[in-house]
């Protein structure tokens, strides 16, 4: 017992240090290289909403046509801490702290599930090195809090006392406002633990059927992704931001098949994987922050078996273990390297800072830039990553691609466009593949468009009505 406690504390200490390093490295590196602290797009949406989270307006006017101003507990927490340290540092610190909390809770859950200390240690290491974990707890997305709440709720439910159960229900209930995928997973966890007398697999299947029926009836979207997209959304080496390393996948698959012989001992894990596989077809990679726990468990058990097993040839064992560890570390290092240089660039944010000082007006740009423009320039956009108005999207495509000046002017007047924000990626194929295509050709009309800002990355054009 003393030996186990001693091992537990060592493993936890190592995990804590590694977790701290991995979770803070992207932000520190970006800062050191002069890149904006936050990366991705959703971080900027959360930054903007957190600015007003403590006294939120009814509607969000930063997008054409408005929408309800949606605040969740994450924004409130960030808003609170930002009073002390500012919005952007709060958006770095809170996910990191939640990530460290998840590490501790995950270790505790593994202990409750009966895994050996070596298996626990490796599983926690696999979790920390997993791109899905790193992305969830460094990208300032709201998923970090919902994952934390679900893990906390699940751990509390395992305690099986009344106070813990009530606290668990509270925690899981708090996860619901974060969106449909998180709500479904919270409900699934609750029902799984509360119906403990039934065997895990049939229990999971019954709950899933019920949830799937509810989602289909209420019109939840389904993905039906082809295989190539499945790889692109789940493998970080193939480009996914919140996926898994190839080596994690390989170890997971080996563990999945080799432990099938002892499936009675891992019934809950298999049941949860079944649930997550089904949910993937509704919610796609939004499920990855939950899958990462099970991928880590199976891959951690696989590594432990590899180390403990008596190999026929010691050389092969040493080489295999070395390659596995190198592969995991390489995958994580390559992923961290990507995060350090991920958009937005410094030039993009500087251009938005400049735009913030100009006369207000709607900004036309590619919808994935919407959150940056809303936060950086405090100006409304036609479309951002949340708005799903098809007619606006179609009109934007026309505005970008048409060479008919009158038609473009008519649409720009309709949407009260004042500025057009263009970066190099848009010009390099994302929107236009030729230098004189569509709107780029129309920019020659000096009476209609005027270039008001340019840096190596970004051009801002003003539409002269």
């Amino acid at each position: 017992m003393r030996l186990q406690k001693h091992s537990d504390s060592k493993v936890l200490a190592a995990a804590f240090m590694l977790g701290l390093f991995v979770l803070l490295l992207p932000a520190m590196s970006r800062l050191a290289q002069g890149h904006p602290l936050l990366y991705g797009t959703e971080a900027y949406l959360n930054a903007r909403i957190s600015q007003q989270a403590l006294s939120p307006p009814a509607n969000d006017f930063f997008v054409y046509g408005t929408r309800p101003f949606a605040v969740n507990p994450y924004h409130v927490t960030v808003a609170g801490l930002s009073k002390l340290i500012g919005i952007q540092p709060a958006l770095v610190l809170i996910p990191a702290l939640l990530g460290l909390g998840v590490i501790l809770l995950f270790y505790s859950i593994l202990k409750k599930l009966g895994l050996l200390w070596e298996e626990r240690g490796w599983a926690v290491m696999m979790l920390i090195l997993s791109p899905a974990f790193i992305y969830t707890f460094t990208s300032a997305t709201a998923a970090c809090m919902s994952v934390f709440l679900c893990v906390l709720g699940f751990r509390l439910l395992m305690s099986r006392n009344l106070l813990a159960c009530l606290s668990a229900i509270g925690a899981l209930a708090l996860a619901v406002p974060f969106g449909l995928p998180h709500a479904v997973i919270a409900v699934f966890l609750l029902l799984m633990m509360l119906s403990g007398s039934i065997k895990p697999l049939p229990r999971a299947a019954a709950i899933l059927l019920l949830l799937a029926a509810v989602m289909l009836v209420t019109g939840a979207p389904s993905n039906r992704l082809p295989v190539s997209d499945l790889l692109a959304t789940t493998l970080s080496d193939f480009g996914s931001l919140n996926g898994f390393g190839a080596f994690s996948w390989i170890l997971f698959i080996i563990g999945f098949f080799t432990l099938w012989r002892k499936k009675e001992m891992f019934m809950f894990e298999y049941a949860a994987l079944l649930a997550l596989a089904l949910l993937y077809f509704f919610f796609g990679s939004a499920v990855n922050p939950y899958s990462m726990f099970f991928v880590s468990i199976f891959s951690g058990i696989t590594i432990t078996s590899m180390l403990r097993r008596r190999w026929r040839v010691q050389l092969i064992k040493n080489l295999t273990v070395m390659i596995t560890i190198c592969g995991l570390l390489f995958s994580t290092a390559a992923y961290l390297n990507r995060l350090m240089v991920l958009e937005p660039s410094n030039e993009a944010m500087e251009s938005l800072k400049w735009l913030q000082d100009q006369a207000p007006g709607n900004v036309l740009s590619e919808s994935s830039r919407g959150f940056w423009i809303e936060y950086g320039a405090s100006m409304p956009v036609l479309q951002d990553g949340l708005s799903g108005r098809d007619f606006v999207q179609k009109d934007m495509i026309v505005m970008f691609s048409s060479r008919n000046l009158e038609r473009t002017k008519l649409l720009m007047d309709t949407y009260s466009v004042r500025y057009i924000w263009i970066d190099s990626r848009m010009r390099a194929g994302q929107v236009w593949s030729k230098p004189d295509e569509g709107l780029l050709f129309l920019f020659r009309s000096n009476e209609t468009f005027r270039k008001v800002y340019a840096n190596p990355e970004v051009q801002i054009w003003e539409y002269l009505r």
Partner: protein
Amino acid sequence: MSMKVSRTMILLLLIFLSAFFFRLYFAFQARNYDFDAYFTIRQVENIMQSGVPIYNDPLSYSGRTLFFLPLFHYLLAAAGSLFGTTFAFKILPNLIASTLVLITFFISRDITKNPEVSLVAALLAGFIPVFIYKTLLTVSSYSLVIPLMAFLIYCFMHVERQKFVLLFTAGILVLFLTHPISLVFVLGLLAYIAFVSIERLKHKKAENELVLFAGLFVAWLTLFVYKRPLLEYGFQVIFQNIPADMARGYFSNFSIITSIYEIGLIPFACGIYVIYRYVLRQKRRRIYLFMSLALCLLMLLWAKLVPLQVGLMLLGPILVLLTSQFLKLGMVYFSKTHFHNHKRLLFLGVILAVTFTSLLPSASLASKARDEVASEELIAGLEWLREKTPADSVVLASPDEGYALTAIAHRRNVMDENFLLVPDASQRLADVKTIFGTKYETEAVNLLNKYRVNYILLAGTPDWPAYFSDARCFAVAYRSARVAIVQSLCEVHQA
């Protein structure tokens, strides 16, 4: 016994030398090489001069990064430094390819325990038509890859012995550093493990461990070496960013007639029969190893995930090994018939069949490979470009001439047949086709300006575009019977 053994070895040596000299006979009938060979030739020559291959290539596509595995190039460079480039480019690749004869013999002897059957298998292995066609004058790394894969199979079969474990480990490293097709080999081994499980045979610990090691090792090196292409293309990296128009030719439909001709009727038919027999009727562990590899390749070919001729080249030796099992079964059956005293006649029949179904198609495809090499006139034209044009000139040629252009003329090309990480490969191909096919001079000149083309290489093209006759914009700088080089003089300015 030793007399019989030495007679077998002498016959084996004869078969090996026949295969080798057969290759050399056709190889030395051509002075030049296949167009694809010039990529390797250029890399080898660079290694011989500077010690490193060219990864940042200023000439290909007028400047780009190359992704390839260099071990074969280093091997040829070492040979070239010692024995000259003719040895390195013509003799050594064909010598290495011919070692497939020896390896096939030893594998076959292990399976069948029958030297005569093994000699027939060795003979078949020496004359796989598609393997000869793709390695005769192409200076291709497949010359090393195919025999190496056979060698790894042999090591895998003897995995209980430490020596072969070490050889397998070293071999898989060499294989991966030679060509990424090692992934297919590892997939085949994984399929074998799965087969053993499905058939409820007892797993050999050593086999499982080696397969695990090989799989992880190849996965790690692939992720390390091809990190950028994987990030850029994901799973589609298999298709190497080849433009759709050309991809149809690379990843053609799997056709039985083509397969029979390019692999040989006997290996194809006998190999398929053995697969059928051991899937449905009998269990035999060693046969499952070859079957797994064969089925894996057939599936990849059917799914068009492997170029057709590459897949057939890999499939051929596997089917030859399965054929040895068929021949052994045939011998056993024959010995129970009334004709069991006429074994020599049977062998004669088999040799005749091999001659007609493997040797003759091999000769036919070897002749085809010889005829498809770069012509003397083209080489002369490229040498003229090197001597008479400025070093930074850009030359437009057809994509298949791109490697020869950079290797011999040392000039920039507009495109060649390496499309990986080229951002606008499809657009370039379309533009090149337009330049050669359009009736409109302005359109052509616009595109020539876009790629900053100074010269256009016309090789073997019977009909020039009509606008080349406009002397204000085009001047014939070089002319021979079948090659012309036209200088582009004009620029289009926007009003």
